[in-house]
């Protein structure tokens, strides 16, 4: 150290320091430059998606939701609804709307997932809103079905029935059957509250809670749902059970009664 301290007043010292500083800066630049570059690329991909989305939007959505997503008499404003809402509405075929009615029903999907993502990107750019969730957020395998069942009965079953078979609302509106709805769409529905469904934001129902609810539905209302007691009659409760008891049960028994009481065929046909 002594040597250095002696030479620091050397006329070339400033030059050396400058060189070292430059080298260090260059090294740092070399270390960090690729990240910045990727960021730039991503943001350009994002803006590309937004551009593509905007084009799709102008063709398929603007007539109702307004050219800038500001909404019109035919459709609500999309500013701030977020990418999750677009992915849900378009991804389940509810949008674009075919005809006005009590509520938009599920339909065959009109766009590819890439196009949906582009639309989502465009709408997300209009104002901050819920983003599309990651798989780890909604994967039913990571949820606790029992806890989810309890949350489902508090927050959801009143409209969607015990196991999500759906139910009626006022004036022709209804809560749909949740069988066959993808976990991602369920998550987005809770996050964004499509149509008359209330919103369940993170502040009221945390990501883990939502995942548990999805796990419950995956257990009781999916292709692999177990029905230990036999055919489930649609999971609709006493109405379908009562119908079955009359139409199959009692009719079978009356048929048997007819056989028991009928006279046996006679040898001679009269």
């Amino acid at each position, binding site marked *: 150290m002594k040597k250095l301290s002696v030479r620091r007043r050397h006329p070339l010292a400033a030059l050396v320091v400058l060189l070292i500083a430059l080298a260090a800066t260059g090294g740092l630049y070399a270390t960090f430059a690729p990240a910045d570059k990727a960021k730039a690329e991503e943001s350009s991909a994002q803006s590309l998606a937004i551009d593509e989305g905007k084009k799709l939007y102008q063709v398929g959505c603007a007539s109702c939701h307004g050219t800038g997503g500001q909404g019109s008499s035919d459709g609500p404003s999309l500013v701030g609804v977020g990418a999750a809402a677009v992915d849900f509405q378009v991804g389940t075929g509810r949008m674009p709307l075919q005809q006005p009615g009590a509520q938009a029903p599920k339909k065959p999907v009109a766009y590819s997932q890439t196009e949906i993502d582009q639309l989502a990107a465009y709408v997300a750019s209009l104002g901050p809103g819920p983003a599309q969730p990651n798989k780890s957020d909604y994967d039913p395998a990571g949820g606790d079905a029992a806890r989810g069942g309890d*949350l489902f009965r*508090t*927050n959801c079953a*009143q*409209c969607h029935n015990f196991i999500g078979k759906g*139910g009626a*609302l*006022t004036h022709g*509106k209804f*809560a749909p059957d949740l069988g066959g709805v993808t976990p991602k769409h369920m998550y987005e529905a809770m996050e964004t*509250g499509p*149509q*008359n*469904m*209330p*919103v*369940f*934001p993170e*502040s*009221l*129902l*945390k990501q883990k*809670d939502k995942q548990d609810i999805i796990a419950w539905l995956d257990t009781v209302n999916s292709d*692999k*749902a*177990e*029905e*230990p*007691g*036999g*055919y*489930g009659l649609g999971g609709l409760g006493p109405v379908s059970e009562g119908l079955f008891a009359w139409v199959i049960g009692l009719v079978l028994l009356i048929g048997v009664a007819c*056989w*028991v009481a*009928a*006279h*046996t*065929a*006679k*040898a*001679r046909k*009269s």
Partner: protein
Amino acid sequence: MSSEHLPSEADHGPAGQVAVADHEDPFKDPGLPPHEPRKQDIDERSAKRSERTVALLFTISMLATIGFIASFVAFPVDKMAYVWPLGHVSILHLMLGLTLGIALFCIGAGAVHWARTLMSDVEIADERHDIEADAETRAKVFADFKQGAEESGFGRRKLLRNTLFGALTLLPLSGIVLLRDLGPLPEDKLRHTLWGKGKRLINENTEEPLRPEDITLGSLAFAMPEGLKKDDHDFNVEIAKAALMLVRIHPDDIKDKKSLDWGHDGILAFSKICTHVGCPVSLYEQQTHHVLCPCHQSTFDLADGAKVIFGPAGHALPQLKIHVNDDGYLEALGDFAEPVGPSFWERG
């Protein structure tokens, strides 16, 4: 073609008697038709075939019972399997049901087939006899009764009779008194809930106190009073009255000004218990602000003081007065101003 064939009758007498059949009556009863034999009655081979069918049915029943026992032993109670068209069912349950059902059904089918094909099917007529007793019996019964009644002195000794009636009338009162401790008196129990001044609103899902910013426009939250825990012994009794439903409606959309005042910046807290018979009403339509009861479809307009707009409920859902405390949490300003839940006689 009016009514010449109908029995004549007095104006207010019994209307109608059996039409008297004259001997030339074209509709007269030809009597029981002669018995016609069945195939099994005249053809021994046919009878044998029936016999074999019956025996086969009984044998199937035996096999099914063995199958039942085998299924009980062989299949684990939690084994599921896909069985078309039923779905993923418990294989033990299904096999037990089918084997037991077949075992029972085949015994029945065998017995009935036996009766129908091999037992005599000659129809026999049995005479009916009047249910009413003849006059002599009737007279004897009344005489016996009268004698017994007189011997008892029941009619004569009025003091005995009246005190007996008195004793028998009073006695059941003991039984009624014994029922007193079935439950407490209503008193004012139905008028109070756990809510009170300064109780914070706890989110039922997260069990954390709610802040106004947690409740976004269009959202629906369920809250319980601070201090109530889900594993409390009286949780069900308390939540049955205290259950609360929170929504946030844009203040401009709230028609009822008192309702707006009782909330905080459009956050309104209503009782979740229907005023009809007490189901939890919470089918909230965030666009119409209507809430529907899943039990009997009473519909309440939360934007208009939770007034009833359809269905059998008789009055609006009670609203809880809330505000934001100094720490920024939502809290109640008191209990509900009126009894929650189904209305009752003393409600007023």
